[in-house]
């Protein structure tokens, strides 16, 4: 075939492609950076729970279209992984991870990714980034020159889940338990029942019947806590009810700042965690 003939053939490509190229204008930041900023801001806002009533969520550009409305993800061996909400970025590949292939991730083609058979819940992707993963005092990701780094992606069944392992049983926070998506953590009936009994959070003293179980060991963000008493959120006091093994309470505090309060008010209490069938539970 001659080059002129190929040029003619290319003239027949689907009009959707031609139209897309007609309208394409690069006006957006990398998708993952946008979501990273959102995630980092949300982490900070949720973590400190300050002025939730008066602050808007983190800003996002108005250029969101189709797939770009979701954080970047990839599928490896049938498992869907999504960028860590904690934006774990490193210049060195963490120990134990090995090259496993290449994939199109967050608008970047041919990104090498790395897996670790001992940590199937994480995948690292080597891709272009505009940050070192640190945030400034406002919770916004610090920007750097474009460079390549290893970025952590987390199994979507674990991503963003607040978990506690208590006596080798798994509990999930009512805040993060899902019952209505493709991969429900719990059934709606169970969720509604526990919501009616305990709610998502209890303010004040430890409710009657609950006893101190100990302080959960923090195993790290995006991790599956394991052992006698461990959490993937932070070190926190855990209480249990000997008569109801379906629930535990985790000590917490939060702030409100409504107009009536004239400043912020600290509240102390407990997040409600309910027992669930953790997909990552070690098989005995």
């Amino acid at each position, binding site marked *: *075939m*001659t*080059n*002129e*003939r*190929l*040029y*003619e*053939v*290319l*003239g*027949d*490509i*689907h*009009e959707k*492609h*031609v*139209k*897309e*190229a*007609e309208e*394409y*204008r*690069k006006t957006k930041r990398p998708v993952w950076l946008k979501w990273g900023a959102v995630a980092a801001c949300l982490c900070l806002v949720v973590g400190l729970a300050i002025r939730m009533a008066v602050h808007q969520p983190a800003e996002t550009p108005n250029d969101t279209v189709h797939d770009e409305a979701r954080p970047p993800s990839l599928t490896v061996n049938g498992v869907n992984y999504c960028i860590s909400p904690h934006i774990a970025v490193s210049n060195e590949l963490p120990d134990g991870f090995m090259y496993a292939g290449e994939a*199109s991730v967050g*608008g*970047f*083609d041919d990104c090498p990714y790395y897996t670790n058979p001992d940590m199937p819940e994480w995948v690292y992707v080597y891709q272009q980034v505009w940050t070192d993963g640190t945030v400034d005092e406002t919770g916004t990701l610090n920007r750097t020159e474009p460079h390549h780094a290893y970025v952590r992606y987390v199994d979507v069944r674990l991503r963003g889940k607040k978990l506690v392992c208590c006596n080798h049983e798994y509990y999930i926070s009512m805040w993060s338990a899902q019952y209505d998506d493709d991969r429900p953590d719990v059934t709606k009936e169970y969720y509604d029942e526990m919501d009616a009994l305990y709610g998502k959070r209890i303010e004040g003293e430890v409710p009657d019947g609950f006893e101190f179980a100990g302080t959960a060991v923090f195993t790290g963000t995006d991790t599956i806590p394991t052992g006698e008493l461990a959490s993937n959120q932070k070190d926190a006091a855990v209480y249990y009810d000997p008569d109801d093994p379906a629930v535990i309470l985790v000590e917490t505090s939060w702030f409100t700042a409504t107009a009536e309060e004239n400043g912020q008010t600290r509240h102390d209490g407990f997040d409600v965690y309910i027992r669930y069938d953790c997909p990552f539970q070690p098989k005995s």
Partner: protein
Amino acid sequence: MDDAEIVQLYWDRNEQAILATADQYGNYCTSIAKNILGSCEDAEECVNDTYMNAWNSMPPHRPNILSTFLGKIVRNLSLNRYKHNTAKKRGGGELPAVLNELSDLVSGKDDVEQEITRKELVNTIDAFLDTLSPEKRSIFIRRYWYTDSILEIAKRHGMSDGAVSATLSRIRLKLHNYLLERGFEL
């Protein structure tokens, strides 16, 4: 006036259709023709021929996307004009460079294409384009459909000239391998 209204003018045999087309898509068609031919004069002639072609093809055609319909006509007419000019050793715009790049993908012999169904080849190229990110797809199509210069593509995509050239080179290599794997030896 939207596309459907302009197309309806053609179907009604209303000559306002040409004016509306020129008003709405004149610049679009001219830029494609000029990319290929380099000469404003030649480009203008091709664009006028494009309106005449559109008039003759609607009806029976009722295009969904008028811009790409017109773009395809002007691209073909400009290519024919380019061939004519080349035979007479007259210049050309961006097309010589584009054709030179496309030489990476083809043998340059005419006999091979007999064995290839054009429609299958187009479908396979469409499938390949679907595998690219929107940005890379746009870069490729701006170069090999719109015949944009590297400089224009760089501006449009916020990249350096070198990055655009390197991206195009990688996409051509990928396309070459993609076609080979599917039995297309061009």
